[in-house]
Each structure stands twice: as structure tokens, then as C-alpha cells.
């Protein structure tokens, strides 16, 4: 992989060590599978990427990477 950028490499790669602490989890919302990043100690998570095979799901702003989702206890 080659990075072609005007940003210095050391700035891009700073905090690379902390990346391994991030907890990724797979979940499904309205039938769309996705990888989410759990925010520790809360019931929130952030969408990292979709695992859907339907291209139209990627146009849905609700599923944009970075969107916060909330887990709720099952009733």
C-alpha cells in the first residue's frame, strides 16, 4: 500500500498503536449488516462500514460511516 499525500507520513500514522484497542462488532439494522465500533461504557456505537450487498444501502444517509447508533435492551 502506498500513501500519496501532502500530509507527512508521521502525522498520518500517529496514534497507530491505539488502533488495536478499538472494539469492532457486527450488527444488523433493518436487515443491513454492518461493522460498528462500540463506545465503551455506553449503549452507543459508531458505524464503521456496511457489509451489505445492496448498493442502494450505501446511498442511505442513515448508514453513512461515522453515524451514531443506539443499542437498546431487548424488551
Amino acid at each position, binding site marked *: *500500500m*502506498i*500513501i*500519496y*499525500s*501532502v*500530509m*507527512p*507520513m508521521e502525522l*498520518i*500514522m*500517529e*496514534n*497507530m498503536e*491505539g*488502533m488495536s484497542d478499538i472494539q469492532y*462488532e457486527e*450488527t*444488523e*439494522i*433493518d*436487515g*443491513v449488516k454492518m461493522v*460498528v465500533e462500540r463506545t465503551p*461504557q*455506553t*449503549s452507543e*456505537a459508531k458505524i464503521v*462500514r*456496511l457489509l*451489505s450487498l*445492496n*448498493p*442502494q*444501502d*450505501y*446511498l*442511505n*444517509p*442513515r448508514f*453513512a*460511516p461515522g*453515524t*451514531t*447508533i*443506539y*443499542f*437498546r*435492551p*431487548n*424488551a
Partner: protein
Amino acid sequence: MSFDIQQFGVKRTQIPPLQNRPDLRPPMNPGLAAGPREEEAPQGDPPQQEPQGDAKKSALIESIQQLGQTSVASSPDSNIHCLSIIGQIEGHMAMPPQNKTTKYEHLIPQLVAIEQNPKIEGLLVILNTVGGDVEAGLAIAEMIASLSKPKVSLVLGGGHSIGVPIAVSSDYSFIAPTATMTIHPVRLTGLVINVVESFEYLQKMQDRVVSFVTSHSNIEEKVFRELMLKVGELTRDVGTNVVGTKAVEYGLIDEVGGIAQAMQKLNELIQENKQKENILQ
């Protein structure tokens, strides 16, 4: 899953936690609540005890935090899709969280959807990027270039390094008068084991970028390579920082302009495209 273009409006509503609102539970709820399956139920997470009155307030605060304003004006249905390429272009490796990134694994299926969706008639690509992964950037550029629908790009702020091929991949490109594009060689950092092979590999990588840019814009290969290897312009590297009007003079970008010109051009291209389709029918 059926899909409604009305969801494309810029309005993004944050729905407060739903445990107190049985009336809003999925499948009717339009919000963002995830119903994890039984085995995925969060372990050790305190259930949110937010009273209903605060929920509205917290949604408001959240929209201020996320968007910098309380509410976003809702727009009428748009026949164009706006794709913004910002920050670093993230490719095969996830970048540390201080980087703002455009993720190619999200953009590529999105471009497939844009091609497929009959309600989208044109694509507006807005760039303010510092570059990023060569292969991811070229993949996005190739996807935009091969899209059958009219597409216009606009460079604001910066469209550097791998942003250059993306900027020229559209049918017609604009650059803001103050925007810049840095043209410099592809670099390899870290351990170099086989100098000759590494050099040739880099040369090939470089040629891919150069050939894409020269075949999708009016700049000549000789001029582009000259700009790339110019000494004395950049502090840390060889290369050139090309500002607004200069980019148009070199033939890299088609015109200096802003959002109004870009939208006007896109609408013209959409009309032309429709007329062509009518003739064919």
C-alpha cells in the same frame, strides 16, 4: 429493501434512545435505534435512564454538536447526488482516528448505486482532500470516469496528490480561485530492500497516476511531469503547488468557478444527456 429517494434530503434527524417510547420501536421507527439480537445484547451496559423530556433536549444538543446548528433546512427532492471527497482517502489500511477520511469501500458501492438509481441524473463531486491511498484513489477516479451519468467536479481548498486524478475524472472540472493542487512524485517510505525493483515499482505506480490524469484532462504529459519534478516550490519535496487559475492555464482543470457554475454546468450536461436519450428513443 425498497428505497425511497426522499431519504436523500440533507435532513438528518437524531432520534433519542427509544426504551421509553414503545410507540416508536422498529419496524415503524425511522430513527437509528439498533435492535441487537438476543445473543448480541450488550453485556454490562447500563440501560439508559433518560427521561422523556430530556430526550428531546439531548437530540437537539446532539444535532448542534454534530452539525453546528439546530436544524438543517430540508430540501426538495434533488436529481443530483453530491459526493464529497474530504480529508485522507482511506484504502486498504484503516487510518488512526485523528485523520478525517473518505472510505473507498463505502464510495465504490455508492457509485454503483448512483449508476443504477434512475432518480439520480447527475453527480457533483466536491473535493477538499490531502491525498491518500494510491489504489483507493485511482479506484474512485476510475469509477467516476466510467459512470454513464453526467458528472462535474469542483475543487475547493485543496485537491492534492491522489486528489488530482479524482478531480479530473469528471466530464467537466472546476476549481475555486483560491484552491490549490499539489503535484508531486509518489513516495515510498520505510525500508527499501531492492533499490532497482522498488524504483521500477514506484515508476509504474507513478505512470498509472500520470496516464490517468493526462488522458482525462487537457494537460500534456511533459508539462505534468515537469510540474511534478520541479525544484524550489515545496519545502519538503519536489513538485508544484498549482493554484486556481494556474491549474486552468496548464489544462489540468477546465474552468475556474464555484458552486453556481458547477451546478449550472451539471444541469446543462443533464439536459444534453436527456436530449440524447430522447433522440435514441
